[in-house]
């Protein structure tokens, strides 16, 4: 591969597995290599974690023109030179690695705990020494937030318990009057130990658990897990199309919820009500098609668990046409309202360089002008055969994110229709051999690129790393709110609509 030739120095060893390039590198070479791939080859750091059984740090870098690069680096000591200084996107991964696995990225600029609250510094839940049944005492150690000092600077703590039915997260604002000088997001309140529970878990049980990591992205998570288990074994065509239909249905109901949510947050009640009517219709349709409003349990290892008979196909096709017709007036009433546009334009703008540095993903990245979509750049399942556009906006503000989501709904409707046209009788599932070694699931979830990295040994999971798109996007929101006023924050937060549970794991 030409990518190999361009590297500043040759790796220890390389091999090609399932279309991916696996490079072994010594731990002190990890930083220059990742930094080279990100800066010179426009690669994106998509995952970074530690595998205790193999004593390896794994870095997943996606290079759009060349493919997927997996760097494996065996550690010689307790740590390795931190990537964060050269690749800012590595920041949260490394902080997570520090507290969860006890690996020290040397000279990390910000070595505070990330998601564990009041944990003893020497207890690492993902290290092999940690026993799942131990009760860990609270240390009572307070988290040190970034401080902004000066005349008239006010710190506003918000959360973790919020009004309304939303997930827990703490937001620490530093403000001067209304404008926000700094925001620090403190998450981890719904950390359930998902990755550790998945270790040694039977595959079918693991599928059910993975589906529940972030409930409204259940299909995407299940799909990523299935991809990792299936390696590159073929899946029947009918199942691929069904998976695609379920994934797009999930995107549609999620985006409808987001569009309505943005209208609710600016007290634009009538379109908000219209959007929630449309979303509810979709949820009821989901229940009719698959037996579950959130489409859980519709994907299975090696295929799909729910089939669409002729009657359901007609129902779905009719519903898509109806949705297409009902959706446009809603978009018009939102986009045609000066009072809404005034709130959404220029609010919470994320610049393209910032989005790239912190490695934003999904609608957030596309709204900031970064033309990236896993379905198109690293196609999986039926997406290779479908025609669709990837909407991109340049402004990076709330309105851009809204419009990206609006256009994605239109594309998803068209994709569901295309899938229905291609859907011919056939097998629903195929047998998949027991997985071995490294499995990768790469899926475009409604919130962006979702990565599951699974290490198998003797058909058992020995390390499971989930990287939800929200994990990438939270740090970018801390940037997008700067300079905005406090009462605009809920709107910006809603336009991101990130998952807390998916991030905290």
């Amino acid at each position: 591969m030409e990518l190999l030739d361009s590297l500043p120095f040759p790796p220890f060893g390389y091999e090609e597995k399932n279309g991916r390039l696996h490079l072994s590198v010594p731990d002190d070479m990890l930083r220059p290599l990742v930094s080279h791939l990100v800066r010179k080859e426009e690669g994106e750091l998509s995952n970074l974690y530690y595998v205790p059984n193999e004593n390896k740090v794994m870095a997943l870098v996606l290079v759009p023109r060349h493919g997927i690069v997996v760097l494996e680096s065996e550690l010689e000591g307790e740590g390795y030179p931190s990537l964060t200084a050269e690749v800012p996107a590595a920041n949260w991964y490394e902080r997570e690695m520090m507290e969860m696995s006890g690996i020290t990225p040397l000279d990390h600029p910000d070595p505070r705990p990330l998601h564990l609250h009041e944990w003893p510094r020497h207890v690492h839940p993902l290290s092999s020494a940690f026993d799942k049944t131990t009760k860990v005492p609270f240390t009572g150690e307070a988290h040190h937030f970034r401080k902004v000092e000066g005349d008239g600077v006010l710190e506003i703590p918000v959360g973790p318990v919020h009004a309304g039915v939303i997930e827990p997260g703490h937001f620490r604002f530093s403000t001067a009057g209304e404008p926000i000088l700094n925001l620090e997001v403190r998450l981890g309140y719904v950390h359930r130990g998902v990755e550790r529970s998945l270790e040694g878990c039977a595959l079918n049980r693991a599928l059910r658990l993975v589906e529940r990591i972030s409930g409204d992205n259940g299909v995407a998570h299940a799909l990523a897990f299935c991809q990792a288990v299936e390696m590159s074994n073929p899946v029947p065509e009918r199942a691929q199309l069904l998976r695609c239909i379920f994934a797009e249905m999930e995107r549609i109901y999620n985006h409808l919820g987001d569009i309505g949510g943005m209208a609710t947050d600016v007290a634009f009640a009538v379109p908000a009500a219209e959007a929630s009517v449309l979303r509810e219709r979709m949820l009821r349709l989901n229940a009719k098609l698959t037996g579950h409003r959130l489409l859980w349990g519709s994907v299975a290892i090696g295929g799909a668990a729910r089939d669409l008979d002729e009657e359901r196909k007609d129902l779905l096709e009719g519903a898509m046409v109806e949705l297409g017709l009902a959706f446009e007036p809603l978009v018009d009433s939102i986009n045609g309202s000066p009072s809404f546009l005034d709130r959404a334009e220029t609010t919470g703008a994320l610049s393209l360089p910032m989005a790239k540095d912190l490695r934003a993903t999904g609608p957030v990245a596309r709204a900031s002008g970064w033309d990236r979509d896993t379905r198109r750049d690293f196609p999986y399942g039926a997406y290779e055969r479908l025609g669709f556009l990837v909407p991109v906006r340049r402004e990076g503000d709330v309105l851009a994110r809204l419009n990206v989501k609006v256009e994605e709904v239109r594309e998803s409707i068209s994709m569901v229709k295309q899938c229905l046209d291609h859907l011919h009788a056939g097998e629903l599932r195929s047998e998949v051999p027991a997985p071995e070694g490294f499995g990768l699931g790469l899926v475009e979830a409604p919130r962006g690129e979702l990565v599951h990295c699974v290490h198998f040994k003797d058909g058992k999971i020995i390390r499971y790393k989930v990287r939800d798109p929200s994990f990438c996007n939270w740090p970018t929101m801390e940037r997008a709110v700067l300079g905005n006023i406090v009462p605009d924050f809920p709107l910006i937060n809603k336009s991101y609509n990130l998952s807390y549970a998916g991030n905290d794991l």
Partner: protein
Amino acid sequence: MQLTDLLLTLVEVLFILLLSPLLTGVIRKVKSWMQCRQGPSVLQPYRDLWKLLRKSTVASKEASWLFLVIPYVCLGAMVCLAVMVPVFTTGPSGGVGDMVAVIYVLGLFRFMMVLGGLEGGSSFGGMGSSREMMISAIVEPTLLLSIFSVAAISGTTDLSAISDHFAGLGLNGLSPTLFLASAAIFISLMAENSRVPFDNPATHLELTMVHEGMLLEYSGRELAMMEMASYVRLTMFMVILSNVFFPWGIALGTGAGELAVGVGSIALKLLALSVSVALVESVMAKMRLFRLPNLLTISFTLSLLAVMSYYIL
């Protein structure tokens, strides 16, 4: 003051107190209809108040004695307002309903509410209070100026006498001044009573709150009183708008027939105003906080034009 006058004033106050939650219920009902929802019954505000009245009070440790006194002062100020403003008859409140006093009773209410927001010691209360002061700094002169314009026409600052004057004139009383001033008052009504586009009375987002932010720390009976005071304030603004600017139908004497017409006409006007408030709230999104002064300046300009048009035309 005669016994009948006293009695009438009492009836007027009761009328306002009993009617106010209903108007809020009507606004919510119309808004739900606009959203294709059934919505809660128009009687829901009464039920909420009854529920809150039976709940115990929890006060912040930071709060002083003032915190628990404020609801009484606020509700008291609103009852006071109901005494001063002519509701369905111009008769009894003559001599006490001076417009400057009315504006400053409203000012007292606002001041106490802002203090209540600060008392709890939470950051949301403080944010609500500072935003409320920013808004009211522009609303107050608007209110004064627009009522001043009608005072200039009728030659008195007594609200009853102003009503009496316009009701007596009939349709001849219509003038550009009246329309400009009433438009200004309507915008002030939306701003003072924290309706969309100034504030969102239905929101749960603490960071965006103005009025609700100040009430966050209140609970139980005190919350019920603060809510009640807000309902009454909305009603009193509507009463001022209808009786000072379009007082036709108001009872000029104390005859039974006249009074019945007066009650009917004010009830109709309040209903119409509630519906229009709900309609305005349904077609707009809430404005950005720093855009509010623009809209408020428009209302101030309208009131200024009202005064000028009286002298020029």
